[in-house]
């Protein structure tokens, strides 16, 4: 376990938002409290798994979840754009919950998505829920993006993938203490690759101890758990399974 500390030790200083700065494959990244990843050198903001229109997707099947998830998620994203003024915004796949989601967008929500593409580059990395990319909304569509020694894609590839930045798995960290248990969305990284938490308001989480994460890391990873105003670095041995 001791070698875990080496690649991260310098980076525990919190960033100005309470986020966590550390190196992934030698590139400095900031894990933000919102669940977004910020590449300051590239002025690039990355968010994964927005699952827009998940509420209406359930409603179409007869479960009337509150129809406010899209505006809630977009509100969080807009706040990050205002705070950081990125040149590039990357939506790292599963931006829509299903293939018909774009058609169900309320008019004002669609306008807000268009505004995100104005004056900056908006890139839609496609995922399993939205493999075709947007139909009418602006922005570029990509399967993968290579930037600053990192490779951005939706679904993490099996085996060692140095420099990979991915989403898809919705990682969540569970920490157990005598006084109770806390479960939060989290980043998870071993310094070689990083998996982002889901950004969408209705996206659930998968425990990082789940077998879905097995074999992805060259050393026991740490979780960047999303706290109220800080991202908390939590070591592997502190993490509990479900």
């Amino acid at each position, binding site marked *: 376990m001791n070698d875990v500390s080496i690649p991260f030790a310098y980076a525990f200083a919190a960033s100005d938002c309470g986020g966590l700065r550390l190196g992934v494959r030698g590139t400095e990244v900031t894990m933000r409290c919102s669940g977004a990843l910020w590449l300051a050198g590239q002025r690039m903001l990355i968010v994964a798994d927005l699952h827009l229109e998940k509420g209406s997707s359930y409603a179409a099947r007869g479960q*009337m979840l509150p129809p*406010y998830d899209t505006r809630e998620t977009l509100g969080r994203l807009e706040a990050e754009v205002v705070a950081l003024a990125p040149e590039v915004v990357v939506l790292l796949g599963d931006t829509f919950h299903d293939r018909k989601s774009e058609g*169900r967008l309320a008019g004002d929500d669609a306008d807000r998505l268009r505004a995100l593409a104005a004056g900056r580059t908006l890139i839609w990395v496609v995922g399993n829920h939205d493999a075709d990319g947007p139909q009418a909304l602006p922005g570029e569509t990509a399967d993968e993006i290579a930037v600053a020694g990192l490779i951005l894609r939706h679904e993490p590839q099996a085996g060692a993938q140095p420099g990979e930045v991915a989403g898809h798995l919705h990682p969540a960290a569970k920490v157990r203490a005598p*006084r109770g248990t806390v479960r939060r969305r989290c980043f998870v990284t071993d310094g070689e690759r990083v998996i982002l938490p889901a950004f969408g308001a209705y996206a659930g989480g998968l425990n990082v101890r789940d077998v879905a994460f097995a074999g992805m890391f060259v050393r026991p990873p740490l979780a960047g758990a999303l706290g109220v105003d800080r991202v908390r670095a*939590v070591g592997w041995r502190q993490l509990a399974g479900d």
Partner: protein
Amino acid sequence: MADAGSSAELLPPRFRDWFAGRGWSARTHQLEMVAKGREGRDALLIAPTGGGKTLAGFLPSLIELSERPPANTPRGLHTIYISPLKALAVDVERNLNAPILEMGLNVVAESRTGDTGIARRQRQRVKPPDILLTTPEQLALLCAWEGARLYFEDLSCVILDEIHTLHASKRGDLLALDLARLQALAPRMRRVGLSATVDDPLVIKNWMASHRAVDVVAPLRAPSTASRSPSPVLFGTGEERNGADRSSPASAGEVDRRVGAETEGALVAHGPSSIALVRGPAGAEPVVDVLLSEGRVPWAGHTAQHAMQEVYDVIKRSRTALVFVNTRFQAEFAFQELWRLNDDSLPIALHHGSLAAEQRRKVEAAMARGELRAVVCTSTLDLGIDWGDVDLVIQLASPKGASRMVQRIGRANHRLDEPSRALFVPANRFEMLECQAAREAIAENKLDGDPPRVGALDVLAQHVMGCAVSEPFDMLELYEEVRSAGPYRDLPWEDFEAVVDFVSTGGYALKTYDRFRRIIQLPDGRWKVRDLNVAQRHRLNVGAIVSPAMLAVRIAMRGNRGGRKIGEVEEGMLEMLDPGDTFVFAGQVWELVGVTNLDVLVRPANHKDPKMPSWGGSKFALSTYLAKRVRQLMFDENHWSVLPTDVREWLGAQKDRSRIVGEDEMLLETFPRGKRNFMVVYPFEGRLAHTTLAMLLTRRLERLGVGPLGFVCNDYAMAIWALNPLDGLDFDALFDQDMLGDDLESWLQESFMMKRAFKGCAIIAGLIEKRFPGEQQKTGRQITFSTDLIYDVLRRHEPDHLLLRCARADAASGLIDVARLGDMLARIRGRIRHAPLEHLSPFSVPILLEIGKERSPGQAGEMILAEAEEDLIAEAMT
């Protein structure tokens, strides 16, 4: 009332012979119930357990069924019996079939519960029995059938057993709505309630009655055998009419309320005042003792460990004892302790709701055969299942209410001519006061009353969906029907509209779901369910009990697979344990191996000392009435003679070193201790109300700059400690009722209790589903997580949504006891008695002993994460 002569008139020969053949004669209240049945009247029978109550309920139906002329066509359901417990329905089936067989009646009585096999359920649907014994949840399901109208059209009688346990709850709301539905389908249906002794029968009458303004209905049958005493014609009283007028909306228009008016015969109403009240014999006064444990009553704690030897000795001297406790943890603990002392190897068993059904049934069967000397049990055995020869009821730790205790005492000695015997075993000094107060309340026959209840809107939403699934409904007609149910008699039209809108589209201000409606309007304006899929999913989710996520406890097999199931535990309990930890369950010590999906894997532990998870004392709050009696007892020094010496000395020391205040006053002590300043109050209002009070006071003290550091609560007292002295504060202002305004609102919004309440309401109202057809059930943890997300989004975007209103109401009543707190603040206004002390007081010792034992769920999240991070930093630095 009924003498031998009327017995001959009321009972057909076969019934008279049956009674005589067993050496019995029918009891007065049984005959009275028969008479009310003949008159076609609704009736409420109040009788102690063991008074032949259930038979009294069934006699009118049995007589009617025995007098039917033979029929060539299949008949419909005649009588439905509703029990709060599955086990009780099955038990009554057995007890009812005995007289049916012995009298050779051509009557089929069958139970139908969640455990009934599919083949039998399907047969019951095609070919209904004469008498169906079932639960409120099953009834809701039956009412949501497509063929419900036809199925119930011949229904003559509905019998509601143990009604006192049902009415003041969401299950009671649902049942009242289904009664209204049944009455609409079967206008001639009679309502019969059976209840244990209650403080105020009118509350129950109001719940079980039909509140239709003019509910005009023909009696069951023209009086023939009872024609000598023609039944009076009864209409609704003025009281009922007023109730209806008050809530009639102008917009509702004129509705034909004369349901069933065209049927022939005399007219009988179903309002609360037309329900005949029948009382059973009072029975012999119970003999209740309090175990004094001279010199050894502990300061604090909930286990009564100090008294186990005495309890064991009492069991040894009794035939069969029921040992009641208030929580499963206490049950496990007491069972362990008794077996540790059990040198005579007495057959002592354990029974609580977490054990596997099979194991519970084994215990019940052994009990019925009279093979057990004692059973340690929780409220799962509160209700009147009839087993054998219990001659003593032992209550470990305080019963928290006189009514609950009367019910428990009723389990001893089902023969009314002999007194029931009960023994209270207080677990600490405050409980000693409580048990004495309860003993005296029972001796004076004073019971705690239930607060009035308003029907919950999430339950109504489920019911409206059920109606739409069964057949198309007219909104105005359904509104009138719903308001005939007691808990909903004052339902405003606007709320009903909001509920229907919720059922259809989710009821959001943002109208984007109109095309996904779950119920749709027909051209004639009636509403029906959209499609079979929606209907099917509703049926899978019917019911108004939302229990915490339960995990199965299984013995670990090779390869981390789960073997035999031992029982179920609440998910919350697991959060306190790590693999390798040991705990007591089902009377044994187990080691936690791990948790997979919905299974908790365990293996028998080698060592005998379990790491006991801390338990939060009793789950019941002291009833308001009993709390008052405890305060009286404390204040009245002459009364102290009933208490053991050490408790008397404790009270005396409190009087000398601090003070004891009047029954309507509240003692407030302040004193320094270590580097902290303490404030302790003794409202006796229960842990929930105290915790809410402490949360709100902490916010206020923060604003006052006192620097509160923490608090702890139990059922009697609350302690807050702070950096700065608290003596100089204006306590009347601090405890002012206005804390229940904005402070409460802002605290509640963020609290985990609102999230928990919201989840319960969301499941009941059908916003989220317990399970999808054909879909694997997800783990409870994932469900919790996603309802929290929904709550957060809804709260930000539509804070006045129907379900948030429901959740707020639930949290305020069930989870944080705001009503109780409000009454208390009103009571102590201007009556706070401050005792500034230099040292802690004798009264404060028990509460101070609890510091550090409490968990603070919800609050601790960030702290736990911060500590986990420190651990990583420490690791990185070494």
